[in-house]
């Protein structure tokens, strides 16, 4: 019935894996796994973002959510982050893949909250793991630590300031010495 579609998958590590799917009939698929096995899967959706798969005699019930960074898949008591690119998305990624590798200088806030203390001093040498900024979120203080070695180049926030997820707190440049 369908053609074979190819999907590139990332599941929490750097390895990318290729899956292929062909629709056999409504809700029934032939799937080729990254290691070359071929499976027949009967997929049924009992509700929004819920899938029940019958595959090789096994019944697998799955809840998932589409988040910005890919899919969150809840299966068998485990929650996995899986990024799936279809062929078009894969080509777009390849085209834009010229972006720089490695860790940039910016330490961003992983949470929304309030800066209660700045430990970092401009110009000070730091090593990865040193606490730099204390952000209070939900009444708990969180030590935000240097993500790399280097020298504190700029401090982008002040004590008492509210921060959002992704706000640059501190930048750490390579130590010129």
């Amino acid at each position, binding site marked *: 019935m369908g053609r074979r579609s190819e999907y590139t998958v990332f599941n929490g590590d750097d390895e990318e894996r290729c899956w292929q799917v062909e629709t056999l009939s*409504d809700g029934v698929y032939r799937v080729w796994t990254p290691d070359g096995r071929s499976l027949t899967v009967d997929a049924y959706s009992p509700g929004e*973002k819920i*899938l*029940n798969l019958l595959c090789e005699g096994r019944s697998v019930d799955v809840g998932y959510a589409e988040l910005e960074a890919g899919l969150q*898949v809840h*299966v068998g008591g485990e929650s*996995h982050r899986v990024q799936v690119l279809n062929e078009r998305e894969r080509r777009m990624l390849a085209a834009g893949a010229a972006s720089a590798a490695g860790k940039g200088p910016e330490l961003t806030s992983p949470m929304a909250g309030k800066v209660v203390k700045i430990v970092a001093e401009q110009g000070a040498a730091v090593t990865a793991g040193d606490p730099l900024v204390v952000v209070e979120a*939900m*009444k708990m203080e969180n030590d935000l630590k240097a993500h790399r070695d280097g020298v504190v180049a700029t401090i982008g926030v002040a004590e008492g300031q509210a921060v959002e997820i992704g706000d640059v707190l501190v930048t750490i440049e390579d130590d010129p010495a």
Partner: protein
Amino acid sequence: MFEKILIANRGEIAVRVMRSLKEMGIETVAVYSEADRQALHVRMADEAVCVGPAASAESYLRIDKILEAARQTGAEAIHPGYGFLSENPDFARACLKADITLIGPSPEAMEAMGEKTRAREVMGGAGVPLVPGTPEAVSDPAVAKEAAQKMGFPVLVKAAAGGGGKGMRRVDHADHFLDAFEGAKREAKSAFGNDAVYIEKFLVHPKHVEIQVLADSDGHTIHLFERDCSVQRRHQKIIEETPCAILSESVRQQMGEVAVQAARAVDYEGAGTVEFLLDADENFYFLEMNTRLQVEHPITEMITGIDLVKWQVRIAAGQPLTIEQDDVRRSGASVECRIYAEDPEQGFRPSPGPIFQIRPPAGPGVRDDAGVYSGAEVPVEYDPMISKLVTWGEDREQAVARMKRALDEYVITGVTTNLEFHREILEHPEFISGDYDTQLVSRWMETRQRPPRSQGEWAELSAVLAVHRRDEALRGGSAPTGAGDKAKSGSRWKQLGRFRQLQRYH
């Protein structure tokens, strides 16, 4: 009996309290902040009143607004839940003045137990054993440090008005004392508006074991046995169980008696909890008394069959506690796991946000006290607890096996949760033995390797099929849904577009 009660709280505890009230035929009034318009407790209540903006200090902590909401709706009593105003004597007094019954102890009992330094004084006087510590709050860092050195490290710096692990720091070495002292004061100030802290000797390998008490206005006081709350992260409990697996029967009885004695010493009324530290030799020391319902109260309800909220309400209405100590029977074992929107792999960092779907477990011996629903948000402003998952079993082994089953059954997507982490703890050899202390999690996190996960391939397969089906649905026609599926997914606008293309619709 009251006809209408206002619940001055939010989230799962507000929902839990309402459930008992509904069973008693009492009307319920919710209060909510602007951030909580969509919260479950608002949906469950008979009436709901907005009490201000998202920040707790401007809504859930505003005594005037809460009382105004009670007056406006004609509520005769207020249940404070836990946290927020539940242990605030000013609130208790304001209720008295407004002629509204606060479901809880007297302001005097709250004061005696709320300030930890005073509580120690009162308890010491009543013959309750105490852990070494500063007799009162210390503000001078130098004096505090000297006191700490005198009792010997490690010590705890604790907020005098504290609770829930906020404003509490462990210090292992004199060099780190001043930083921790200041940090605890800052946290105490922001969480409780009071930066008084005191210093206490930190016991090595202690268990946190607490006793539930119930007392009526005539002073009839009973205990409902213990809860072992030693599984903690960042000084906050995450798993509680009853009975405590290693407690001998004679010490259990002693602790119960001492807890009753402690409650009587402050003329306690209602439900309360006396917390103890239990050391390896089964010596126990008074830690604090919580003059309110506890998060982990359901496990006591599970093994005793007693609805604590119902008794709180009855006692507040002036009814006598008709249960005698000898009538209280324990049956089986119970475990509670606190399900949080947090990431154990990132130092238990809160991960608030919208819950995409939540499918709680069910079946024999399972109780899920949740405060959210699919599509609801875990707001950034409040505690990120999603639910209290509780199981009961004929014995500890069955209760724990049920908990593992229930954790596996629980589906929560949209936010990161500690569901898997709970399962790991339940499989930790120290937890299995029952002989674990309050440092179990922090010690273990130093060397913990995340266990290999078995569902990775299913997760990938599911994700691939989800995307494949989405793409097919976008390309044309309705979503493939599988046999027997009635609900077609996809946007109505897209359907309209397709209809128009087919010229069925002009």
